[in-house]
């Protein structure tokens, strides 16, 4: 015998209350002197036995009422031959149905795992005895899991309808994420037997977790296993996936390496990566390129088994503004991953504001002369030899410029910086702008630290100490410790020498700091002895980025500007900082679309037009005096979404930006995880594996629960005892 809520058994102690009341009442009496004791004693002698019996009966009834009530609340159950006649089905079935897009894989038998899954789910629902005590919950298994029926329900008809209506989504799979909802559903359950039915194609990817999350997920699985363990419950994994794996998928679409800026009239290079998940070479597969929905070209591909193919293609945009690029493979067994899009904002030019801290009369004495030439070699700045359009101001003219008009602000060897300028720059970077800071002989460390570092709160990634290196440029340091994974330096992965041999003689030493997630050292200086001092350090600040270069951009602290690598380095860093952030336009299914409005873009109403041309209204939320924010969460379907501005003074909605919402590419790899592997990866997860072929009826759905309805009988006994107590108390009382 056991108890479902054994904690409530403590209430049985309430059974002592009538006894305590009885004893307490015996202590609370009126005291009188009494003459007729003879009669009282005679009466006492006559009635003592009867009174004691009556009192005992009433006391016993009252104690039993409370004890039985506590017993009923504790929900006792019994698993014995004696209790069998009382037994009823009492199972809570948590049905977890995988609706990730891999469930749409149409195998050689022309069926999909989803169709099998629906059949299994309906079989479970049919097997439930809801007229007894069986209940169910329905949870959709994706990487954005949803509790369709979270509260334990007995409405099987609704369950069947929900299962029937739900189709495969564009989501990926994460069992770990979904198990959180399973745990919540189990915790709500009051049933004796708790069973979790995970109906999935059981692909490897669904069970994968990062090393960081492994401990947490293992604990979660242990908790769910423990919750389902008692009374013959458990976790059943219904594997409805097929065994054949042949699928092509576009796993990525991005700008080609080194291509950071997409400008009008300049060829832009893209890379589409296609994976053959199958064991057979695929040849002659056509891949179409669509720009803004219109087909622009096509490639015929041959891909080796289990291999990746990177297919580059070039397109030149003529018009600035938002554009979408889509690659599309011809149909195969799983269509969801055959298409991938990329949204870009094409610029006619990138506007750069250079604040010159030391204007010279010649190229060699001017702080930024080399830098300007590197960014735009045109003699006439209006000439389009580069996508950079440069505006130069002196230190004292900085205040007159509004940084928000520029894509990049470069501070070159400024002595100090005014608080208003700091505020303006911080707002600019926080809202997505790029900032590049060069130091030099004029840099006043104390002032800079006060204004720009502010104990780690400011734009400077680290605290400045003092100039160091070889005075008068007697010798040079090379560059070392280059982070080639950094987008600004990845270009040099194959051109390392051109970067590492750049000669730098002097630099600004900085204080060491504890690692921070928002600060990244991109490169250091090859100084003999000790750790290399940082040369390039990036600080992520809000939605923007600031890069500190601890040396000067001119010849004063080294001969770097005279080397070709200088031009490439400046171009890469400045392109990286100034390029429109494309990442936020390219998201996965389920991620929210985010957009920060500039003042000129403001409107009260925006619309998001989805891949099926359905439109949803979005209203901006004011963040501060200058900024409004838009957020749209309805990206449950893969494809290109258009953010449109609706203004009364404009004849038609204006396109603000495209968003490419893509499926999780890993989901397309329909490789199955075997039962043994699953058990070895997560030994904490105790489950029964059911290889569920089509047409096989689900088995082991419900179990006869231990007699758990004893509480009903106890409650009946409580009522009977209460009735008896009332009658007997009346009867005994009438005699008194």
């Amino acid at each position, binding site marked *: 015998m056991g108890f479902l809520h054994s904690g409530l058994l403590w209430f049985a102690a309430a059974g002592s209350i009538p006894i305590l009341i009885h004893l307490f009442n015996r202590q609370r009496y009126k005291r009188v002197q009494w003459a*007729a004791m003879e009669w009282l004693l005679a009466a006492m002698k006559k009635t003592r036995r009867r009174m004691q019996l009556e009192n005992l009966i009433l006391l016993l009834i009252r104690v039993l009422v409370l004890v039985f009530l506590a017993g009923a609340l504790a929900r006792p159950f019994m698993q014995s031959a004696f209790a069998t006649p009382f037994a009823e089905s009492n199972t809570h079935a948590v049905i977890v149905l995988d609706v990730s897009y891999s469930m749409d894989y149409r195998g050689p038998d022309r069926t999909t795992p989803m169709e099998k899954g629906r059949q299994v789910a309906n079989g479970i629902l049919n097997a439930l005895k809801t007229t007894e005590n069986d209940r169910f919950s329905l949870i959709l298994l994706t990487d954005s899991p949803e509790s369709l029926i979270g509260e334990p329900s007995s409405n099987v008809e609704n369950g069947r309808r929900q299962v029937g209506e739900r189709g495969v989504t564009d989501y990926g799979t994460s069992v770990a994420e979904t198990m959180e909802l399973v745990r919540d559903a189990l915790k709500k359950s009051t049933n004796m037997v708790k069973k979790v039915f995970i109906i999935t194609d059981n692909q490897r990817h669904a069970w994968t977790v990062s090393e960081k999350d492994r401990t947490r997920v293992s604990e979660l699985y242990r908790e769910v296993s423990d919750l389902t363990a008692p009374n013959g419950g458990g976790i059943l994994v219904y594997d409805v996936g097929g065994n054949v794996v042949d699928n092509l998928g576009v796993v990525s679409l991005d700008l080609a390496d080194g291509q950071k800026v997409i400008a009008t009239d300049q060829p832009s290079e893209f890379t589409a990566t296609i994976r053959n998940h199958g064991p057979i070479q695929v040849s002659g597969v056509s891949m179409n390129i669509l720009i803004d929905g219109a087909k622009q070209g096509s490639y015929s591909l041959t891909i080796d088994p289990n291999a990746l193919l990177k297919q580059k293609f070039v397109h030149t945009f003529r018009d600035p503004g938002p554009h979408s690029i889509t690659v599309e493979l011809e149909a195969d067994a799983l269509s969801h991953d055959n298409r991938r899009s990329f949204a870009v904002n094409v610029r006619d030019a990138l506007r750069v504001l250079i604040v010159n801290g030391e204007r010279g009369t010649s190229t060699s004495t001017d702080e930024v002369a080399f830098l300007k030439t590197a960014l735009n070699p045109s003699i006439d700045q209006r000439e389009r030899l580069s996508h950079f359009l440069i505006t130069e101001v002196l230190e004292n003219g900085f205040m007159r410029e509004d940084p928000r008009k520029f894509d990049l602000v470069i501070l070159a060897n400024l002595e100090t910086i005014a608080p208003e300028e700091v505020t303006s720059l911080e707002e600019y970077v926080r809202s997505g702008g790029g900032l590049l800071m060069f130091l030099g002989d004029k840099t006043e460390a104390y002032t800079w630290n006060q204004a720009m570092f502010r104990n780690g709160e400011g734009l400077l990634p680290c605290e400045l100490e003092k100039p160091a290196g070889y005075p008068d440029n007697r010798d040079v340091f090379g560059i070392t410790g280059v982070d080639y994974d950094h987008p600004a330096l990845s270009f040099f992965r194959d051109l390392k020498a051109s970067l590492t041999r750049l000669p730098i003689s002097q630099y600004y030493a900085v204080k060491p700091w504890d690692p921070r997630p928002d600060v990244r050292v991109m490169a250091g200086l090859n100084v003999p002895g000790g750790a290399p001092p940082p040369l390039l350090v990036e600080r992520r600040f809000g939605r923007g980025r600031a890069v500190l270069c601890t040396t000067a951009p001119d010849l004063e602290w080294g001969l770097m500007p005279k080397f070709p690598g200088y031009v490439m380095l400046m171009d890469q860093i400045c392109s990286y900082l100034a390029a429109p952030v494309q990442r936020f336009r390219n998201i996965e299914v389920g991620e929210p679309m985010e957009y920060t409005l500039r003042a000129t873009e403001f409107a009260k109403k925006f619309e998001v037009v989805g891949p099926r041309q359905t439109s949803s209204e979005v209203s901006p939320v004011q963040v501060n005096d200058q900024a409004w924010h838009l957020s749209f969460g309805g990206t449950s379907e893969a494809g290109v979404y258009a953010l449109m501005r609706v203004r009364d003074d404009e004849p038609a909605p204006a396109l603000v930006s495209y968003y490419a919402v893509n499926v999780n590419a890993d989901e397309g790899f329909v490789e199955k995880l075997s039962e043994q592997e699953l058990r070895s990866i997560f030994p904490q997860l105790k489950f029964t594996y059911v290889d569920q072929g089509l047409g096989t009826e689900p088995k082991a759905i419900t179990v006869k629960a231990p007699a758990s309805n004893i509480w009903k009988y106890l409650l009946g006994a409580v009522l009977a005892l209460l009735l008896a107590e009332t009658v007997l108390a009346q009867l005994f009382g009438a005699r008194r």
Partner: protein
Amino acid sequence: MAEPSKYLDPHVLNRISRLNLRARSVMEGFVSGLHKSPYHGFSVEFAQHREYTPGDDLRFLDWKVYGRSDRLYIKQYEQETNLRAYILLDASESMDYKSENLSKFDYAATCAASIAYLTMEQQDSAGLVLFDRQVTKFVHAQCSPAHLKVMVTEMEAAKTTEKTDFSHVLHDIAERIKQKSIIVLISDLMDNPESILSGLQHFRHKRNDVIVIHVLDEYEARFPFDRMTRFDGLEGYPHLIVDPKALREAYLEEVSKFTSEMRRGCLAQRVDYVQVTTDQPIEVAMSSYLARRMARTRAK
């Protein structure tokens, strides 16, 4: 200090006196008519006539009236009924019990004083015996206002601390009263009926007329307690903690059984038995008894 007239409540006396005046024959009956006096009165001053009742001395029959009217009248004279009344007042500890206003002793003493007063008013003599397990005070019967005062003072001075023991004390008193008298026993009768009846029989044996006034406190008669009560017994009984509601029925049965036994015993010995409770107005209780006694007497 208690007032001398504590038990002579003018209000009560007034009520009883007027009652007496209104029902003179009742009072007469109380002292003479119902109990044929063994003594003759010494007074010769004619007071009034009254109808003859069997037992009256034929010497006082007015033959002239009989001759004229063919009806029998007795001539009554002042101090005609020079009788003795001994009031036996129980002064045991149990009489000290009171629930509301008067203790049983106070109630009994008021009855005793009132009877003594009325008796003396009619020039009869009254005596007082206070007792518990033994006689604590014996005041011989006399007839004078000063004597009444003595009786009242004795009643006021009585201390109620001892247990009653009728088996000895009534025999003792019976032996000490040499002349035939009216014996008025006022007590709560907290003893066994056999002992009490045995003592009463002794009085009857000596040809005394006996009236038993059984005084009960209203709570003793009704037992109205309703919550857990500790009863601290008087007269040396132990305490008892009980739920009175559970005991009431049995208790009242016991009371009824006792009073029935007493009533039967008294009837058998031709002793008047009157039960009064302390919540009854004394005059009402007495007049009720006297009315019944008169009716019974007339019926003889």
